[in-house]
């Protein structure tokens, strides 16, 4: 039996997606945390 049409094998690279999402979250949440902690510094002044 002959195959017809094209066949695309979807790569298994989900770990790269997870790595990118984690790095992005760490940077954004990290900066938000720095701003929050900085704002606490001036709370009682």
């Amino acid at each position, binding site marked *: 039996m002959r195959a017809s049409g094209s066949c695309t094998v979807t790569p298994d*690279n989900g770990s790269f997606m997870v790595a990118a999402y984690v790095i992005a979250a760490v940077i954004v949440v990290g900066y*938000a945390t720095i*701003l929050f902690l900085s*704002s606490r510094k001036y709370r009682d002044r």
Partner: protein
Amino acid sequence: MITRERARALANRGLVVVVLGLAGLAAVYVRAVVYTPVERVQGPAQKIFYVHVPAAWAALMAFVFTGLLSILYLWLRDRRLDAAAAASAEVGVVFSTVMITTGPIWGKTVWGTWWTWDARLTFTLLLFLMFVGYLMMRGAVVDHDMRARFSAVFGVMGLVLVPFVHLTVYWFRTLHPQPVVLKPTGPTLPASMLITLLSSVAAFTVLYFGFVTTRYGLMGLEDARQRELHGDA
């Protein structure tokens, strides 16, 4: 500069907007991972697109605002404009860091290499380093007027570079994909992917305004503290 009460109110409001933006980003993550289809050729790594592109959008928007505020500062010499430009530049560097770290992760899966010195990547790196230099320079120059003037010149140079970065994919042969949304013929993404991308752009835009408002408020608070320390209040 602004009063301490006004600065504190801005910082608090900014933090509320940041929390909203983070909640939006969390929702985007869920939508991108669970509800958005996997691209057939690139696989799950294509979903990096939903973080990388909005981060690039927010970074370039930040640098455009920095440039425009810098022009206004050079014209009006208002310290609030300098502070707002600096806040926007700092947030732009944060989003650029997201852009410049997630991009190579996608590149490794699709191009087979983490980095290539083509026009888009090289000029984006140049823009990023320019604004890192902007922040370093602000930390090094003590005199306020001199710091603000130098920063404004840096900011205007960055503004000139932004459209150049966007157009490099048209002007040069480059590995970097061409725009799929911001182009004359309209978006060429399936609706499900486009909605995820636009949701992420919205979340990053909210985060940008939240971050800048908070940072600007914190600068005002620090300025008020310095004035009190030196007896200028």
